[in-house]
């Protein structure tokens, strides 16, 4: 049981990662694919954020009487990655808008049929 509870943050990461990955692969709806992609990326954010935790450490703000701090660097890194993730989602969604205009659908199998007809 300890194996599960001691590493619970990693279990959450793995679960989210696989769930997101599965959605990306299995979903036929493009919006769902983007949702899956976001969940997939979020799992990696969790991985980074949880690795910055130092046992017994507090928030990395200088204060009196505190000697041990958590590592702030992974948080800063992931701030950048979140921005990248938002940008990716934005580009993905705007592509979907244009696909909807061009094909009239956002279901993957439907627009593939339409292109074959040309």
């Amino acid at each position: 049981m300890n194996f599960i509870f001691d590493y619970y943050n990693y279990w959450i990461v793995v679960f989210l990662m696989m769930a997101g990955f599965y959605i990306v692969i299995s979903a036929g709806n493009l919006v769902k694919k983007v949702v899956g992609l976001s969940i997939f990326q979020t799992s990696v954010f969790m991985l980074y954020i949880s690795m910055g935790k130092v046992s017994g450490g507090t928030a990395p703000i200088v204060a009196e009487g505190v000697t041990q701090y958590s590592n702030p660097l992974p948080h800063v890194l992931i701030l950048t990655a979140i921005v990248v993730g938002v940008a990716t989602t934005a580009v993905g969604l705007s592509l979907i808008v244009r696909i909807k205009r061009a094909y009239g659908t956002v279901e993957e199998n439907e627009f593939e049929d339409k292109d074959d007809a040309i």
Partner: protein
Amino acid sequence: MLEQNLAALPIILPLIAAPIIIILGRSSLAWAFATFVSGLACLVAWELLASVLSNGVLSYAVGGWSAPWGIELRIDAANAFVLLVVASVSTLVLIYSKQSIEKEIDPSRHTLFYTAHLLCLAGLSGILITGDAFNLFVFLEISSLATYTLVSLASDRRCLTAAFRYLVMGTIGATFILIGVGMLYMKTGTLNMLDLAQRIHLYDSSRTINTGLAFIMVGVSIKLALFPLHMWLPPAYTHAPSAVSAFLASTATKVAVYVMIRFIFTIFGADHVFNEMSMGAILMVLAVVAVFKGSYMAAVQSNVKSVLAHSSVAQIGYMILGVSLFSAAGLMAGLIHIFNHALMKGALFMAVGAVFYRMGSVDIKAFRGLGKQMPFTMAAFTIAGLSIIGVPLTVGFVSKWYLVVAALEQNHWIIAALVLAGSLLAVVYIGRILEAAYFNEPEEGQKTVKEVSWLMLAPMWILVLANIYFGVDTSLTTDAAQRASEMLFQNSQEINALMESLHGTEVSVAQEVSP
């Protein structure tokens, strides 16, 4: 001042110029400015290569924060070489694109095209010269996001689905790299590449490090479109505007190959990757399959851009094959092919774009009788096509020669034979197009067309002449590639020496071991 900050300029110049282009508004003004900036970046890259070849490695601390805490830009023979390729191809493609995009991109989006192109250039330059593993991920995403936009600019609606598929695959690849870098950071507490290289071997057999390696290798393989992770590439290059295909085919995947080389040789150490993790065997098999699958698919396509896209998958196979041989000669062959393939694929896509400009189609039927109607374009296509096949006096021959020599050096007779057999398949797919152009009469009712203007021909022919020049006089390319591959192997051996002193065990010298 300028001298000191030279290392940062390849990123800064296009990054600052990109938003200015949106303000400029007018399409022709934007074109002139973008070409000017890209030309400047090219000059800087040339200057950097010269400086690196004479004075050795150049290190630059971004914002004055010294490594390993701050982000380090680190320029050595390997990345200065690839940087020059990227910047020169970008400039030539921009000159070419002025007319080419008239037919392929909606006029209201012309300035956006130049903006996205420069952002992509900034991202690619950043990937090349950064010495920080996390920073590499950020630049990778900058260039990728610009790439998705570029692909989706074409007026054919199929480019949208191609761009979306590319976005999904590309994001998964980049996220895999992010996971891998995170695992390295967990164990070593550093992100600077050199610092990583020194510390990784304290935890040599750690499962975390090896899992990180696996994530990074898979992520990079998606980015460079190694079989079987190449499915995004053919539709993206087929449906993108021709100028974009020419730029991406000759730079984006090459930069990803460089990233793989960097991770293998500088960070993890070739000995660890190839001998202990036996990645060499995996990469070699995948590379050979890529060569044959890519060439076969290219031979059965009727869309000529699709032929070239599938052929790119095959050519990436050759590069990875060179890397997977795990010898200085093999690595050198891979690096030379990065340069040479940029020359030939750039010229081929430009020629096809010129045909599209006149004919409005890139189907193989549209090529019938073009040998007479567009003699200069088709001559360019022919020479670049012969270069893909590997005919002597072209750069393609030089790459194949070094690759075969490197394979024979390690007694891989079968690999050498397979490389040559792959060239035969290239004869088939290039030959079909040449046959249509020179030996078939145009279909009845097909319009007769004129040659395109010099603005499209000039950049195309510069690449074609470079194909011949570097095929005859190989001293510059082989010199630079040799210096780069020796340096990378030296990196690897330093890591080995470090391990030896740490573990007190004997580790064989990398070059003498066959995978």
